[in-house]
């Protein structure tokens, strides 16, 4: 997995609440057996019209935001289906960080498995960063994972909370499965005890 340390990039404003994973990547693009190539269909139904032409008003179709690496959004981002195609599409587009007041649980976890940093900040701070993002491509935010800060284009610093284990894995690009397999002995002994306590499982 890619390591995440610091990121200086353009932030795209998306002031919508309850952005669901069906919006992020509609189901017709789930029929893939690969993880890559989904970026062109990110937000497909909001991004393209029925003939497949770009809808100029949609934020990622505006010249200022085509290279966005950060997304600023409303409450409960990523709700709905568990599809990991949502973070795959976000990553494939080039977005590495999301800033929102809150996230749906499964989506939040899925981000970390794919080198994406979802930052939760209080609504008032997200509102300020949303305004900052609206300034376009000249305004770049700085994300510092180690320091756990977001710095707006005019130098205002916001600190965010993060689970230390998730931070550690993201900063070092660690593979969860490899880490867990190091604990195989614990799993073995749990399994032995459980098969005696609950043999019907």
């Amino acid at each position, binding site marked *: 997995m890619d390591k995440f340390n610091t990121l200086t990039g353009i932030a795209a404003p998306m002031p919508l609440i*309850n952005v669901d994973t069906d*919006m992020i990547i509609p189901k017709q693009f789930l029929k893939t057996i*690969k993880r890559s190539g989904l970026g062109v269909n990110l937000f497909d139904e909001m991004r393209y019209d*029925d003939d497949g032409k770009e809808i100029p008003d949609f934020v990622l179709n505006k010249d200022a935001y085509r290279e966005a690496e950060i997304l600023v959004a*409303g409450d*409960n981002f990523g709700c709905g289906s568990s599809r*990991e195609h949502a973070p795959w599409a976000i990553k494939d587009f080039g977005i590495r960080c999301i800033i929102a007041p809150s996230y749906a649980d499964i989506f939040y976890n899925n981000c970390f498995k794919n080198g994406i940093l979802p930052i939760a900040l209080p609504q008032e701070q997200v509102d300020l960063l949303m305004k900052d993002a609206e300034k376009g491509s000249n305004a770049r935010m700085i994300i510092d994972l180690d320091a756990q800060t977001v710095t707006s284009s005019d130098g205002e610093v916001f600190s965010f909370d993060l689970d230390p284990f998730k931070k550690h894995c993201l900063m070092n690009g660690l593979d969860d499965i490899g880490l867990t*397999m190091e604990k195989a002995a614990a799993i073995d002994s749990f399994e032995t005890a459980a098969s005696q306590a*609950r043999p019907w499982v």
Partner: protein
Amino acid sequence: MSPKTLYDKIWDAHVAHEADDGTCLLYIDRHLVHEVTSPQAFEGLRMTGRKVRAPEKTIAVPDHNVPTTPGREDPSNMTEDSAIQVAALDTNAKDFGIHYYPVSDIRQGIVHIVGPEQGWTLPGMTVVCGDSHTATHGAFGALAHGIGTSEVEHVLATQTLIQKKSKNMKVEITGKLRPGVTAKDITLSVIGATGTAGGTGYVIEYCGEAIRDLSMEGRMTVCNMAIEGGARAGLIAPDEKTFEYCKGRPHAPKGAQWEAAMDWWKTLFSDDDAVWDEIITLKGEDIAPVVTWGTSPEDVLPITAAVPAADDFEGGKIGAAQRSLDYMGLTPGTPLSDVEIDTVFIGSCTNGRIEDLRAAAAILKGKKKKDGLRAMVVPGSGLVRAQAEEEGLADIFKEAGFEWRLAGCSMCLAMNPDQLQPGERCAATSNRNFEGRQGRGGRTHLMSPAMAAAAAITGKLTDVREMM
């Protein structure tokens, strides 16, 4: 011992390892797999040369993509990309030696219906699947939740998940439901009260007289939509109804093992003095038959209400409500019972079980769907379908003008050919009314099977109580 909730008890029984910061390896008893969220996980195993740790605890069934029309065993009757996904599942199940129900098997169906039906889901278990509606299995007092594809791979390789414990929420539904009010109305009403993010960070336990009174099938409907309320999982403590349901199922324990299981299962309830981080109480008597009007499952109103206006809301919801109203093509102030529909979909892991079909058939018996309206019933599994045929329900549906389909997810998420056209409006018994969920530009109103049946007859959103 300090008092525990049901969630605490199941959690404690499954922690294989706990790190100093509270990060746990939670042991997984049952892993359910379907064709859409698993190919990349199996590919990951192959690339790293890893094996499936416990293939005997892993069950796979294709459901999301499969057509629900006859002849579907033949891959040429599927779109190419769907056929590739189903073929990949066939191969992965065979290569890794996991239990498998192909479309040619009468036991095939929606993964969350097959699990309980076959006795794979039992009280006190941990159950996961790369699918958010895994919450369904919580109806058995099993800790069940959806995971992403990377986590699917993690469970396949290690039979564990890296987890931190959630908080405990109690949702109590007191008293009795009124006639015409069902499990679906309970679960939608709870989401209406808490919002789609209200449960974030929690595991919900549903309790109270109205929940106890529900059948296992109704309880599955309630827990199924815990995820729409944002919760990691929904739980209902097992009781005699649960045990009765499990007994004799193909993969349920038998003989002495059954007795041993029962001894443990009977300890699975929240202690009287357990501590809750949040408690929500609704009165069963206050719940009405509801429908959704917008594009979020929290957009719930009694069928007797009118379409709201955006400025009835506050904060970010004002914009969201306006966007919903525009998308749904609704005018504020219109009585919901005046909203005309052109499609009816009865099915899904929320409401595709035999009891749901009975409830819809009871309304449709001797009646016809409105002319010009498209209506379909998609049973949740091949066994549900067979039972409905035996009970004469299939004939009632067919005589009412419904299409009688084979089992699968179908128009719940429209990955197969069953889709709404732009602007089409559907009365659906599924669980999500998101933009484009049932087809690009399609408009979804969620409701109970009885309400969907009533809507099929009148061609409008309808208060089922007027037909009872």
